[in-house]
């Protein structure tokens, strides 16, 4: 797990949550993901190409996604509505963009696809990549307690 790839995603997640949501996120220990199950109920996924190729995903629980949506837009979301799903796709896009900016500073140039958002419990995501998937577990506080969001990525 090379920190020059990990740190950009950590910095990007922190910056996006702080700037757009006004939330400080804390991170548990990064790990190599041993299974293909998405963590949460709604997951944004983007492909990455360029000097490296890979995938990044950002997975929220439904409660976490609704909290993020409400914080961003000011409305209470109505379950996994198209608007809430849009918001998760956009957060994935912005975190990916920030991470790619940091990676560019390290000499690694990447472009990203348009985000796809996968909705559902116990969803499997198969990153087609020879390299391990790094999983970054973050936590943040909401009105109703702590929520988690997982940023997973692989680059080869």
């Amino acid at each position, binding site marked *: 797990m090379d920190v020059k790839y990990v740190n950009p995603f950590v910095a990007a997640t922190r*910056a*996006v949550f702080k*700037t*757009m949501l006004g939330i400080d996120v804390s991170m548990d220990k990064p790990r190599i993901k041993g299974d293909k199950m998405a963590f949460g109920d709604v997951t944004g996924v983007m492909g990455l190409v360029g000097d490296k190729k890979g995938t990044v995903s950002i997975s929220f629980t439904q409660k976490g996604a609704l909290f993020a*949506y409400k914080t*961003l*837009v*000011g*409305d209470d979301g109505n379950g996994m509505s*198209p*608007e*809430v799903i*849009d*918001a998760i*796709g*956009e957060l994935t*896009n*912005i975190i*990916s*963009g*920030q991470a*790619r*900016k940091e990676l*560019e500073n390290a000499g690694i*140039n990447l472009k990203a696809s*348009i985000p796809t958002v996968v909705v559902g419990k116990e969803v499997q995501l198969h990153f087609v990549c020879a390299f391990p998937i790094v999983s970054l577990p973050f936590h943040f506080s909401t009105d109703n307690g702590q929520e988690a969001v997982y940023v997973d990525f692989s680059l080869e």
Partner: protein
Amino acid sequence: MRALVVDDFATMRKIIKNVLQKINITDVIEAENGVNALALLKREHTDLIISDWIMPEMTGIDFLKACKDDETIKHIPFIMVTAEAQKECIMEAIKSGVDNYIVKPFTPEKLQGAIEKARERAAK
């Protein structure tokens, strides 16, 4: 001041509208892509354009070029608001005539500053 917000994600248009409201820009019209935005610009008065980059039908950069090639609308300050933070993207937007470029994420203060600079640049 009336702003035109162009983004294919409805939620992002809502987020930008929210941010504009915080800096007292409440007259906002929307389009979901460059093609619709150009049609809107032909019939609606607009003082400011805020556009995403990656959109279907017409990208933000092509929309920017179309605006700057049109004598009737090239004077309108054009801000690109996008997740694309890489130098080559920023350079391409500058060469195409963008008046300012903000990388997401952004605060209301950052957007306000960008609007002021864009208006100064477009006025020259």
